[in-house]
């Protein structure tokens, strides 16, 4: 059995108190609980404070472009489905510049775990409004207050056909870990949005604010995360923010549909072509 230290590469340099520490911790907890082989894990990160995660977590890491986490992760997963592939994005990375990939990955239901660190701000670029910032949010890019209603990534995901939709909170690291574990075990695309205070660039949404403004879905026994309409109503209700497993359904993943099961991952193909078969194709051009 592995333990948390097996996934700890280096001490993070996020600001003291940053919400991303809790995610880092939860991820290590989950990995240890599932006894995952770090050499079979790939963490793909976006550009932003969240993107540093792959510097600290011990696994194969890919720190690519702003907003392009999911196409990269999909390319990896489809080429070698045996890998546990995690994507980590920020709210800007996932819901602004990367939004289209997000929706299309959900639609395809590619077997990825996607962690969206939502700090309601562009942190690394020193504080601009993000798609999850609230109406009226004052920042360097909206000095007179944002005029846009925030985007609810989970609601979008539900509409796009997402099959595992959850929300965690950095203030509740162990609950977050268990959500991540469920997400990793889910067959298909698992979205876990992580409410994660940015103590430096966003004073508005503090731990205290979140503590007062979130509620746990698991406390509500009447809530059924398998009911699409129920989920929709919750996500539209306004008021406090639901945290926990919001929706889950089972539907074949993209890999199941496009990758012939019997064969090995395509990265292990023998690349030498079968001559007679190939020459047969050439006949078509005679």
């Amino acid at each position: 059995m592995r333990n948390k230290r097996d996934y700890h590469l280096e001490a993070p340099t996020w600001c003291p108190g940053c919400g991303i520490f809790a995610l880092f911790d939860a991820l290590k907890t989950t990995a240890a609980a599932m006894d995952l082989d770090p050499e079979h894990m790939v963490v793909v990160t976006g550009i932003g404070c969240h993107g540093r995660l792959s510097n600290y977590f011990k696994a194969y890491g890919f720190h690519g472009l702003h907003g392009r986490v999911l196409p990269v992760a999909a390319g990896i997963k489809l080429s070698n489905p045996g890998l546990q592939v995690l994507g980590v994005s920020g709210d800007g990375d996932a819901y602004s510049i990367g939004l289209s990939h997000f929706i299309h990955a959900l639609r395809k239901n590619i077997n990825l775990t996607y962690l969206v660190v939502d700090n309601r701000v562009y942190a690394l670029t020193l504080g601009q409004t993000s798609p999850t910032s609230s109406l009226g949010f004052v920042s360097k890019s909206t000095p007179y207050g944002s005029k846009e209603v925030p985007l609810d990534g989970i609601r979008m995901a539900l509409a796009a056909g997402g099959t595992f939709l959850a929300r965690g909170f950095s203030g509740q690291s162990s609950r977050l870990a268990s959500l991540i574990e469920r997400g990793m075990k889910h067959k298909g695309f698992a979205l876990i949005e992580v409410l994660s205070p940015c103590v430096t660039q966003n004073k508005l949404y503090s731990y205290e604010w979140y503590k007062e403004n979130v509620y746990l879905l698991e406390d509500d026994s009447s809530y059924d995360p398998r009911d699409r309409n129920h989920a929709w109503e919750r996500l539209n209700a306004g008021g406090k923010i639901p945290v926990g497993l919001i929706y889950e359904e089972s539907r074949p993943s993209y890999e199941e549909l496009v990758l012939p099961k019997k064969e090995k991952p395509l990265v292990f193909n023998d690349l030498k072509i079968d001559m007679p078969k190939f020459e047969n194709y050439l006949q078509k051009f005679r």
Partner: protein
Amino acid sequence: MINDVSVLIAGKAGDGVLFTGNVLAKILKRSGWEVATYRDFPSNIRGEPTNYSIRASLKRIYGRADKENILMAFDCESILKHRKRIAPGGVVFCDGQDVAGLAPRKGEKITFHKFPLRKLAKENFGHEIFKNIIALGPLTYILNLDFSIIKEVISETFLEKKGKEIVRKNIKALFLGMKEAKKVIRSEECHTLPKRKNGARLLLSGDEAIALGALAGGCRFFAAYPICPATEIWQWLAIHLPRYNGLVIQTEDELAAVNMALGASYAGARAMTSTSGPGASLMMEGFSLSGMAEIPLVVAHVQRTGPSTGIPTKTEQGDLNQWLYGSHGEFPRIILAPGTIEECFEFSVKAFNLAEKYQCPVILLTEQDYAQNLRTVKMFDLSKIKIERGKLLSQPELLRIKDFKRYEFTADGVSPRAIPSLKNGIHMVEGNEHDEKGYRNEDPENRIKMMKKRMRKLKKASQELIPPKIWGKKEAEIGIIGVGSTLGPIREAMDQLEKKGIHSKFLQIRTLWPFAHRAVKRFLEKSREVFVVENNFTGQLSNLIQSQVESGVRLKHINKYSGRAFRPKEISTPIQKAV
């Protein structure tokens, strides 16, 4: 005896011009002739003028002729449009209503025939669509082609998808076309083409050759977004890759396509994407990531007429600069530019080897001209194909390494590569500047070393990449330089010049980057005058030469930028005038 003939089929988009032309091309090829087609189609589904020329020759040909010998027109406007292109002795068939007025003008040695394709189709087969097969009647008749070959091609065309009955009907229609042709065509109008041995040859387009090369070269992951004129590459692979445990995926856009290919490549697949101008612009960011993170990537770029949406179905050499200099920052890149269909296949195979060997992006830069047109080629030599994966580590190799460094500072600049799932290979791939292990590092000394390491890779590459090829007389004083599709018209222009007593030689650039500056310098120095022939406005190749090679020779320019490929005379005439 006739040894070169060009048939132009013209009408409106939606008239089935492509179908008629493709069948004719196949028949000509099976008759043992060398074939080159040229399409000039509108970027529209319907209604606008379109034309397609099918040329057959006893010599090897690589492009269109100066003149057309036979015109099959689906309407009268086409005749007005193309009349000036018809060679003396030419024959014109027209399905137009108003053909009466179309008599030869003074000095024009053309014969006109009214040929009611639609009427014949409707009256005899109840449907206009048969006009396209009927049209083949006069064409095969006038060329005196072997009926058994015609039958064979038509059977192949329809049998699988439509069944025997349709084959029978179409052969009947073609026969009718020939019969009607016999009534109007006089024997002196005929361009009899003697049958020759078909031999081990293929008839295919550059796009198809690249797709075949990709499969043969080990590509097993292909992600792309549709765009003319590159879509044919992956449409072929979409059918065939899955048969090799490979995957073809249509992404939501080009940003996803290039990033997905990078993900797959990082994971260990030979991965590719294909695109054209606007899509390539969207791939610039991923291009740079490939260079920085040293992830092998192959991009097949089929150039079309730009800028912006431009003329999507027409040809140009307007995107050399985009790959030579495009994207932000500085990183190694390899740009291969095939000039023939054979080279499309060969370079496509090679691209994957180079991408893995140098762990950098490799661009296969072609043009609509030969990407979508058909040419005859000798059967590819598959025995030559080798898969070389460079410094990709196997598990045992990796286990022998004490402290694996993905971006190790090595003498040749290429570092060992491990793929996820391997033991002992954990590392980061990073788009930020990084240290030898891939972790972000902003230290100035490390930065300098990393830049040097990355840029060093191509120092070695430049010696072994595909060198330029010299055609013609090495000792000739007139030099021509070109790349890609201009090969065909340049070679014919050289023949034309030769006939006028002007000896010339031609340097075909085949790797645009790293640039073969030594070979080009030598060529320049051994020439009295050098003409750079380019299918663009600003002379991108010439600019490249000027920036890379110092020599006393002043380059002369022959540029065309109408969206159409050169005809040989458009090259030979200015050279003749200038020398």
